[in-house]
């Protein structure tokens, strides 16, 4: 082997030639944790960035800084926010983005494009729509120990496992671009000093058109995915009964031919009775199963009808038919969709009734 010392030293030397990149160490950047966008008037929107300021002392506490500014596009807001910040803005760690409902009803496509184009932004970012003003929601202080950004994220995560369909930027983009599906987002509300998950909203591509209350969200989740969590209280013969879901499965089937399809949604719920108020030992499991079955059948059917009336397809029935039958024509489907028969077959099995009689 021949060794050329000149070559070696050149190799080392070029590493020293620090034609380095402009950089800012992590503590010198303003890391946006939560962002909120509200509509001001026809043209302008207002963006608010929540920037946690980590301070080093015994408490290791967090101060929060909110910077708002107005602009016509996200980039413009971004620039205006930076004019008020001592540190450069970084969107890389953003964990949640809120849209005010006025904005959501108008058009959110502009903000979505920004999110999918910027390589800094992750795909597990949560999106949400806020009743009223999104800025007020993120300016609230909800916990003494947790920073607001983390609080909101935890709230979202916690509820996603139980009551609302899994949702993040990727899921939104998937549905947003798909011909056979429409996006949907969770709906938040500020109630006094608390924030709460108020329900779920549905988009017709880029416009919010329909919403359901939180109590119905569980049914939507049952239709959207298989999961093992959450509970549903119902009223049964003057009793309040609650069913804990310990495993639900949903399957979409298509019957009929290509031009006249008929959807059959098979929903299986295995559950455990968590609460009967007032206590009553005489209610038979079979009866309860029937009661829950009726409840779920009624509510799912109703939900789907509402979707069809609004001509939105958050469940992705179009995707199903496209994947099974091929040769999908989005426009024809849009016309046909409101009148397609959808049947939900629910079966509920109660496996346990808790550790007391």
């Amino acid at each position, binding site marked *: 082997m021949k060794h050329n010392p000149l070559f070696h030293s050149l190799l080392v030397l070029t590493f020293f030639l620090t034609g380095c990149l402009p950089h800012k160490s992590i503590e010198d950047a303003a890391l946006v944790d939560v962002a909120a966008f509200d509509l001001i008037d026809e043209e302008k929107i207002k963006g608010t960035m929540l920037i946690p300021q980590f301070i080093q002392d015994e408490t290791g506490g967090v101060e929060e800084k909110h910077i708002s500014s107005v602009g016509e596009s996200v980039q413009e807001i971004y620039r205006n926010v930076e004019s008020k910040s001592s540190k450069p803005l970084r969107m890389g760690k953003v964990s949640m983005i809120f849209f005010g409902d006025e904005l959501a009803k108008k058009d959110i496509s502009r903000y979505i494009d920004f999110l999918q184009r910027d390589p800094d932004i992750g795909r597990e970012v949560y999106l949400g729509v806020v009743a009223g003003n999104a800025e007020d929601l993120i300016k609230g202080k909800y916990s003494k120990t947790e920073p607001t950004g983390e609080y909101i994220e935890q709230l979202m995560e916690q509820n996603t496992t139980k009551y609302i369909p899994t949702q993040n930027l990727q899921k939104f983009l998937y*549905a947003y671009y798909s011909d056979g599906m429409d996006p949907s987002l969770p709906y938040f509300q500020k109630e006094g000093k608390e924030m709460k998950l108020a329900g779920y909203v549905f988009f017709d591509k880029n416009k919010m058109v329909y919403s359901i209350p939180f109590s119905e969200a569980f049914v939507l989740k049952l239709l959207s995915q298989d999961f093992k969590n959450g509970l549903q209280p119902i009223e049964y013969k003057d009793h309040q009964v609650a069913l804990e879901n310990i495993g639900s499965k949903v399957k979409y089937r298509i019957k009929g031919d290509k031009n006249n399809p008929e959807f059959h949604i098979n929903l299986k719920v295995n559950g455990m009775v968590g609460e009967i108020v007032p206590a009553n030992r005489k209610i038979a499991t079979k009866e309860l199963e029937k009661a829950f079955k009726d409840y779920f059948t009624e509510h799912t059917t109703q939900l789907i009808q509402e979707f069809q009336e609004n001509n939105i397809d958050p469940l992705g029935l179009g995707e199903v038919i496209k994947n099974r039958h091929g040769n999908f024509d989005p426009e024809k489907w849009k016309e046909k969709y409101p009148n397609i028969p959808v049947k939900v077959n629910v079966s509920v099995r109660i496996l346990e009734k808790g550790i007391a009689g």
Partner: protein
Amino acid sequence: MNNSSTQIPENLLISSTMVFFLIHSMQVGVGILGFEKYIASEAGYNAWISIIITGAGLHLILWIIYRILEAVDGDIVSVHTFVYGKYIGGGMNFLFSLYYLLLCVTILRTFIEVIQTWIFPQLPVWLFGLIFILLIYYYVEGGFRVITGACVAGVILGLPLLLFKLYPIQYGNVSNVYPIVDHSILELLASAKGSIFGFLGIGLLFVYYPFIKNKNDSKKWAHFGVFYTIITYLVTAIVAFIYYSEEQIHQIIWATISLWKIINVSFIERFEYIGISLWVFVVIPNLCLCLWAASRVTKRIFHIKQRYVLWIYSIILYVAIFFLEDRRAIDRLNNFTSEVGLYFLMYIPVLYLLVVIIKKVRNRHEA
């Protein structure tokens, strides 16, 4: 037809198993980071079928290449000299050499573009390109054995990246790849053409064939290599189709990298930074092999030292990446290279026919 310079000293030969790594690592490069968009634009979700079609075609071409090389027993230079004679053959060889230089430029520039768009928009190309080319030079200067080592390292380090593909499936819609065919065979073929950029490396066998110790045994490994490549592409495409909706995929230039974004292990988030960085290990063997092949063919034509050719080609490579500045130019370059590559792949069966005919004619003459 035994050309004296095709005889490689025993200690420089590689074992036949290594052909697996050589074939596979050359086919998996920057192309796989963004080929989903191109294949899906023609055949939609059915594009996975076109990958299988391409795969079958590749196995066939590989078989043909082996037949040619066995008939002539040498490398591309001896094949072309055999078929066309010294001068025309030399010209063909030189074209061949330039083609691999072009491929090298395309791969390097595309990879730099990936880094520019995804991590460092302000990356100083002059310095990065220089150091990258010096790295390549360091490998190529070590000879074919060292390049093969780079291939092995690339395949081994690329393996965990393949496993990480399983993660995004949980966010996707598995029924997207329901096997229903709603695209015509023409569309499928057009889509297969879209994926061709990734598969160009197979022709390099023409150059390193004399370096294989047990040539007959290596066939099996070469086919394994192609098979593994097809599996890799198939898995990549299927995962992307599950993860993205069909219309979404058209929006995304680098589908595989975008897909890494969602990977989130407890101690690290945002896998794409790791993925792109590890991709250096996958791209380096590509570039080394191309540059090595280009310089070796030139050496064989003109009988000059390979080191000198290597210097010249490295400088050409360095200059070329400067002239390609924006996304559109790089896209054009990619398309052009794919086009040329496709013609080259189609030329291989023609070459086989020529070899067979000439061999028969000469045999008759001798008889």
